[in-house]
C-alpha cells in the first residue's frame, strides 16, 4: 500500500512542479468552450441546447491531450523500467499513475466544468448532475486513456495516433455523460445514465490496468 501511495505522491509532485498538467488542461478546456459561442453566436436557446455536449467534448479533448504526461516522461528517462521491476505489480502501478493523473487533470476539469456550463447558459438543474457525471466519467477517461498511452509510449510523435486510438473508446463515456445532463435538464431521470457511467468506471478500473500493463511490458522490452 505504501508503494502505491508513494507512486501517487511522486506523480502528483512531478505534475505540480513541472507544470503542463492542471493549468494547461483547464486553460485548453476554457478556450474550447469559449470558441463555441464565438463560432455559433450567442443565442441563448441554442447555447443551452448544446451546452451539455460541448462541455463534455471539450473536457474529453482536454483529458486526451494530457495523456502523454502519463507514461512518456518516465519512459524517456528510464523510470518506467525501474517501476516495472518493482515488487508492486505493473497493473497496480498503472492504477496509481492513473489516480495521480486524475487528481491533477480530471479533478480540475471537473471543478471547472459547472462554471463553464454557466458560460454556455446551461439550465441550473443540469449543473449538479454535470458535476456528478464528470466525477464518474473523468476517472474512466484517465483509465481508458492509459491503454492508448501505454500502446503509443515508444512511438515518436505518437500524439495523433494516441487520439485516433483513444477517442473511439471514449465514445460511451461521452454519450452517457452528456445524456445524463440532458436528461436532468429535460426533467427526465438522469439515474440510468449515471448508473451506466458508474458501470463503465468499474469496468475500466478492472480491465484497463491489465491492458495498459501488457502494452507497457511490450514497449519496455
Amino acid at each position, binding site marked *: 500500500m505504501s508503494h502505491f501511495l508513494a507512486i501517487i505522491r511522486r506523480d502528483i509532485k512531478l505534475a505540480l512542479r513541472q507544470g503542463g498538467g492542471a493549468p494547461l488542461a483547464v486553460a485548453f478546456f476554457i478556450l474550447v468552450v469559449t470558441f463555441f459561442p464565438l463560432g455559433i453566436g450567442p443565442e441563448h436557446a441554442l447555447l443551452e441546447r448544446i451546452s451539455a455536449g460541448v462541455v463534455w467534448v471539450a473536457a474529453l479533448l482536454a483529458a486526451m491531450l494530457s495523456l502523454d504526461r502519463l507514461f512518456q516522461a518516465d519512459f524517456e528517462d528510464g523510470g518506467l523500467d525501474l517501476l516495472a521491476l518493482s515488487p508492486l505489480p505493473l497493473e497496480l502501478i498503472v492504477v496509481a499513475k492513473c489516480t495521480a493523473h486524475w487528481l491533477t487533470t480530471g479533478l480540475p476539469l471537473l471543478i471547472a466544468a459547472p462554471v463553464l456550463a454557466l458560460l454556455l447558459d446551461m439550465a441550473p438543474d443540469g449543473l449538479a448532475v454535470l458535476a456528478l457525471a464528470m466525477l464518474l466519467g473523468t476517472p474512466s477517461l484517465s483509465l481508458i486513456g492509459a491503454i492508448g498511452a501505454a500502446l503509443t509510449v515508444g512511438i515518436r510523435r505518437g500524439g495523433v495516433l494516441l487520439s485516433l*486510438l483513444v477517442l473511439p473508446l471514449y465514445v460511451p463515456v461521452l454519450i452517457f455523460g452528456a445524456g445524463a445532463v440532458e436528461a436532468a435538464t429535460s426533467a427526465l431521470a438522469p439515474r440510468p445514465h449515471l448508473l451506466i457511467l458508474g458501470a463503465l468506471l468499474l469496468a475500466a478500473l478492472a480491465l484497463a490496468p491489465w491492458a495498459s500493463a501488457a502494452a507497457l511490458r*511490450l*514497449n519496455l522490452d
Partner: protein
Amino acid sequence: MQRWANPNRFMKLTSALLPWCAGLSALLIGAGLFLGLFVAPPDYQQGESVRIMFVHVPSAWMALMIYTIMAAASAVGLIWKHPVADLVAKACAPIGASFTFVALVTGALWGQPMWGTWWVWDARLTSVLILLFLYVGYIALWQAFDDPSRAAKAAAILALVGFVNIPIIKFSVEWWNTLHQPASVAKLDGPSIHVSLLIPLLVMAAGFTAYFVTVLILRVQREILARRVRVLRLSQRTL
C-alpha cells in the same frame, strides 16, 4: 493450429486453396446478385430499392465477422505467439474496414429513399462508425512501429480492447430505440423474413465470405513474402 504456424506449410495449403476460393466467390456472388436483382420479389412497401439489402446486410455481417476473426487471431498470436496468426489479424483489417465502409455507404444510399435521410445518429449507425474508426486505428498502429513483432503485439492488444464494440453493435437495436430496424435474421426463434428474400441474402453472405477468404489468403501470403524479403535485406546489409 500449430501445424499452420509453419509459414511454408501455410503457403502451400493456401496456394492450393486459392483458385477454388476465388472461383467459389465469383460463382456465389454472381448467383447472389442474379437472385437478388432478378428473382427476389420487390417489397410491398419499399419496391425495388429493397434490393440494396442484398449488398448492405452481407457487408455489415462481414464487417462484424472480420473484426471477430481479427480479435481471435490477435488472441492466438498473443497467447501462443503463433506467427501466422499475427499476419492473419493484420491482413483482416483493411478488408474489414472496406466492408464496414461499404455497409455504411449502402446503408446511406438505402436510407435516403426509405427514411428520408442519409444519416441518423442512432445506436446502430454510430457504433458501426466507431467500428470503422477502430479498424483505421488498428491499421495505423501496425504502421507506427518499426519492429513488426512489437507492432503485432500492440495491435493485438488494441484489437482485443476494441472487441467490446461488437456486442454493442449487435444488440444496439434491442437496447436502444433506433431508426435502424431490429434483427430479422439472427434471432433465437429463427429468421422472420420470407425465404424468397432470405435465400439471396444467404447466398450473397456466403459469396462475400468466400471473397474475404480469397483476399485474406492473398494478403497473408504477401505478408509472409514481405517478411522474407525483409530478412534477406537485413542479412545482405550485415554481410
